[in-house]
């Protein structure tokens, strides 16, 4: 049965919406090799999140494959329980097509072709970042095999540091500075109304300087309510391993008292 299934030519990387069945069948053969357990195989990589045409087609193909695979798997289990520990020979000529590999006209040779990202004569780094995010999202939902013939050599460090700062750091910096300024103004007003000490004189006081420091650190570290718990857990986590190693030494005090 396996040999007949490989009549379809080894697929290229293009998605083949016109022939979902042949792709499904080649995938079945792959399943024959891979899955030998009766447990249901949840189609855990099927997401229909963005409306991109190729994605939804791939989703359909995946679902077909997974559903068909479940019936196939129960047959396989019977076959293999006769044979030895799951050893199934797969036709060596088989090059089962990847479901649908990541496709993008700007993704060439395992990296982004920067010449296609030109805008006004300069590289549009924001578009590069978007494209890479899309690629990673695709791979997260549809993990692909790593192939030596098409190695991926993209390195995020080719995107210059100022592009990252402009896009991610600056908006957040604006937000945090805004918060700090609001807190600062409010506290300055409150302290002034309570004690009569003006802003310049407040800065000379040690206690006020401490409060200022605490406020700045607080704004930096605590961005959401959950961050308080996160910081506490981080502190505990960093010393947990040490405690586990020292457990045997703590034990010494109890064992010595028990000894005699």
């Amino acid at each position, binding site marked *: 049965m396996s040999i007949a299934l490989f009549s379809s030519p080894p697929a290229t990387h293009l998605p083949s919406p016109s022939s979902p069945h042949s792709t499904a069948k080649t995938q079945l053969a792959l399943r024959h090799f891979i899955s030998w*357990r009766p447990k249901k195989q949840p189609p855990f990589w099927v997401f229909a999140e963005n409306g991109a045409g190729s994605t939804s087609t791939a989703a359909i193909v995946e679902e077909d494959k997974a559903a068909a695979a479940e019936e196939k798997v129960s047959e396989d289990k019977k076959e293999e329980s006769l044979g030895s520990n799951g050893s199934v020979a797969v036709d060596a000529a088989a090059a089962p097509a990847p479901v649908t590999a990541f496709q993008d006209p700007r993704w060439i040779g395992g990296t982004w072709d920067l010449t296609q990202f030109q805008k006004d004569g300069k590289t549009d780094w924001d578009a590069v970042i978007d494209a890479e995010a899309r690629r990673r999202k695709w791979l997260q939902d549809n993990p692909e095999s790593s192939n*030596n013939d098409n190695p991926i050599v993209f390195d995020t460090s080719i995107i210059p540091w100022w592009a990252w700062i402009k896009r991610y750091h600056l908006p957040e910096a604006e937000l945090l500075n805004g918060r700090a300024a609001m807190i600062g103004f409010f506290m300055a007003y409150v302290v002034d109304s309570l004690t009569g000490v003006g802003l310049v004189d407040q800065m000379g006081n040690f206690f006020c300087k401490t409060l200022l420091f605490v406020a700045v650190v607080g704004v930096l570290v605590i961005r959401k309510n959950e961050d308080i718990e996160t910081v506490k857990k981080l502190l505990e986590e960093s010393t947990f*391993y040490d405690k586990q190693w020292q457990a045997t030494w703590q034990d010494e005090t109890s064992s010595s008292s028990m000894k005699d």
Partner: protein
Amino acid sequence: MASIALNLKTFVGLRPASPENNPITTLAKPSSTTTAARKQLRINAAKTSPKVTGRNLRVAVVGGGPAGGSAAETLAKGGIETFLIERKLDNCKPCGGAIPLCMVGEFDLPLDIIDRRVTKMKMISPSNVAVDIGQTLKPHEYIGMVRREVLDAYLRDRAATAGATVINGLFLKMEMPSSKTAPYCLHYTDYKAKTRVSGEKKTLEVDAVIGADGANSRIAKSINAGDYEYAIAFQERVKIPDEKMKYYEDLAEMYVGDDVSPDFYGWVFPKCDHVAIGTGTVTHKPDIKKFQLATRLRARDKIAGGKIIRVEAHPIPEHPRPRRLLDRAALVGDAAGYVTKCSGEGIYFAAKSGRMCAEAIVEGSENGKRMVEEGDLRKYLEKWDKTYWPTYKVLDVLQKLFYRSNPAREAFVEMCADEYVQKMTFDSYLYKKVAPGNPIEDLKLAVNTIGSLVRANALRREMDKLSV
């Protein structure tokens, strides 16, 4: 009586002298003033231990893996009457099988034990960015891949040649001694005795016990050592066609990603004539088969046409047991939980801890002339913690930092492309010393690490925006 009082004192003396890495230990007794007297007391302890008359000290090593084999050899060479109890002499252990270069030298391993020398590694990120590492290795440096049954048998045979008695039997239970000089009574089923098919129940009386019986140690249960968290490592041995095997001639692969493992990595390691493909996890053990499928998917093109010849799984301890020592019974190797985080390496540490514990017993008993006591075995724990604590801690930090999430793993793989990182990693791995390194390069490395992490996390935020 006087000796017992002196022994008590050495106990007390040991506590404040414990290495600086346990600030949490509450010191009930001060005594930082009598360091000289304490040192003297420590040496005197062995000298005032009751002499073992008419015979040498008897020690049983339960478990005949790398830890047990090297412990038994060191004990036998030190003149101690050694009994090595192993239940399956041809046990083919499921194991990655990687040993660092220093192990070959330190344990005088013959070179034909090593099936393959891995000199290249490929790290593959969640988005399939592949980075080759190993260019910084010198021609004589490699990671040795061994078959456990070959290595274990070699170490056991060497112990037997040195004078240890190898017993093919299954350890059942151990009776604790009634006093400081009374023996431990071990109950075991001897398989060699041909009287019954299922083996004959026998007992063995020894003065000290080394528990080298692995992750599910029974000795650990007998001394109430406590439990540890463990990872499940699942592995399939696959025989792939020769042309594909050539690619793995001296190359091992590591796959990271949430699909492959949420807190560990998937691997393809070359063995003698096949490859081992596996993955592991601590937190999501029921999903291990799913992770294995994902690992096979990622390596699909490279293992296409392969036949699964064996499926195996084993537990990997994540941290040491709360108690590694009680009276004159000590744990070594996986039984004690000496597997590193991040890489999950255990063979070298098992053998080394077995050797260290045996050395402590030999020294404390003056080559078998005197009875040992808990203080002598504690010295092995002290030495172990002091020598290898930095290694373990660094690997723990690396695991917490880089195996946390997909962005962290992407950053990890990006960092591995850096030559300095490769050099430091291999130096520490091959020679088991946390290499100091160049401060300027370290600074650059820190900056690059932060940069990679920031970029990867920024991309993740973009990815999250896409899914909404």
